[in-house]
């Protein structure tokens, strides 16, 4: 009986000790660790997305998007993080987009009329459609739709990416674009 008790006590101590070490040490270390949001692992290929209107520039993948931030298919970012209080950026994955008519798809995705539509091709050959629309309180919205593939309908695993930038109409556009680039730089959009 005594040998069982000693053995059980020893093994119980090992189980509780290792369990507490793994959970407790991680919680403790996390609580005191400085925040460093950038992903240091250059794990994926990235490429710059070019637009004829250069409304959007950043790291966007040429086919398919997968990012933690877009886990729920949408993510919003505030320009305040890069020093522009009034700029907001929204990324959204869209499925079942009519890739044959991206201009109509862009208007449909935004549920509003889009002006100044321009189409272009990304460096990797994806269709890029960009336009702008007026927003309340003197803001302008600039939207871009990147449509992978050239079929009739974008497959669910090839979702289109909608990028919407909301900024004051009076803002310096270069500063806005710089802010957008900074925001996009901080977003992990990978292929």
């Amino acid at each position, binding site marked *: 009986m005594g040998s*069982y008790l000693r053995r059980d006590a020893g*093994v119980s101590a090992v*189980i509780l000790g*290792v369990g507490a070490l*793994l959970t407790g040490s991680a919680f403790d270390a996390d609580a005191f660790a400085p925040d460093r949001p950038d992903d*240091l692992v250059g794990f994926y290929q990235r490429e710059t997305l070019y637009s004829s209107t250069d409304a959007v520039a950043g790291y966007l*993948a040429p086919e*398919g998007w997968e990012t*933690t931030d877009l886990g729920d298919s949408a993510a919003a970012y505030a320009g305040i993080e890069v020093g522009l209080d009034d700029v907001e950026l929204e990324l959204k994955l869209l499925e079942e987009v009519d890739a044959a008519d991206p201009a109509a798809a862009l208007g449909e995705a935004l549920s509003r009329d889009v002006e100044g539509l321009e189409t272009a091709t990304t460096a990797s050959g994806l269709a890029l459609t960009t336009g702008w629309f007026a927003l309340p309180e003197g803001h302008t919205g600039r939207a871009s739709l990147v449509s992978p593939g050239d079929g009739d309908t974008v497959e669910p695993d090839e979702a289109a990416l909608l990028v919407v930038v909301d900024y004051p109409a009076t803002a310096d556009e270069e500063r806005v674009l710089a802010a957008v680039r900074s925001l996009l730089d901080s977003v992990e959009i*990978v292929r």
Partner: protein
Amino acid sequence: MSAAAEPPLARRLLFWVVVGMLVVSLLIDATVFTDAVEMPEAALAAWLTVVVQGVLALALLGLADPLRRQRAVLAVLAVLWGGIVAANVAAHANTALGSLLTKAGLASIEAAITAPLNEETFKLLGVLAVLVLSVPSRLTAMDGFVYGFLVGTGFDLIENVSYAYQAALEVEGGDAQFAAALASSVDRLVQGFALHAFWTSMTGAGLAAALAAGRGSRWRGWLLAAGLFLAALVLHSLWDLPALSASTASQDAFVVILTLVVVLATAAVWRWSLGGERRLVVADSRMLGVAPPASVWSLWRPEVGGRTRAVERAVRTGTGIEAGIG
């Protein structure tokens, strides 16, 4: 040969430590069960699939373990540990370590680090507890393989239920939640079936072999256990790595190849564990004055299994082999 009688489980300190951890884990987070009230349709789909996967896993284990010397109560304890303690506590440890790694700039690969480290460790602690509770039964690598498989199965099942609930939460309406939960469960059932069971059967076999090793081969036993644990960590980590390419074909090929490697590695460990079972039976046969089995494959003969279980029972109860097989 007469050993001291084994105290009943209810008088073992370790048994109550395990039970206590089960209770505490449920107190910390029982959403996998309570969510069934809020999403009954999703729960129906998830638990139906759990039954299917559980039956398939047990059938596979039944085929793999010809002698089935392990005790039913400990087998149940192993499944509960995997599903309740390991899955629950590892999830919290993963969150904490994942946050730390993200702060360190390793967000892309945090899951590939946290999941193997925490989950394989917590599952193996359960195997350790059950193996020690099974003493004085003669330990072989197969004991660790079996209990590891059961701990891993418990983990697999509850993890699949959690994923099914997550899928159901993204849609509204009972029918849609049923469909979402079913799709998630079937996907998990098909892709990655019993992976946790495979990984933990490998680490469990190594641990049991180390615990059973004699004084002369103890270091070799622990080195082997460490090697198998490392192998499971690497395989698990590869599974949790983000896709290396956007190409669906290459992603699918990677999954297929990795699954094949996991299955082959588990099969190799199983084959080696069978060898340990045969050595046990050969020793018993010589002691009893009967013909030893010629190969590992003869372990599936009913008389071999029955004789071994009787000897096992005699050792455990301390009644002597003659009484045990009498």
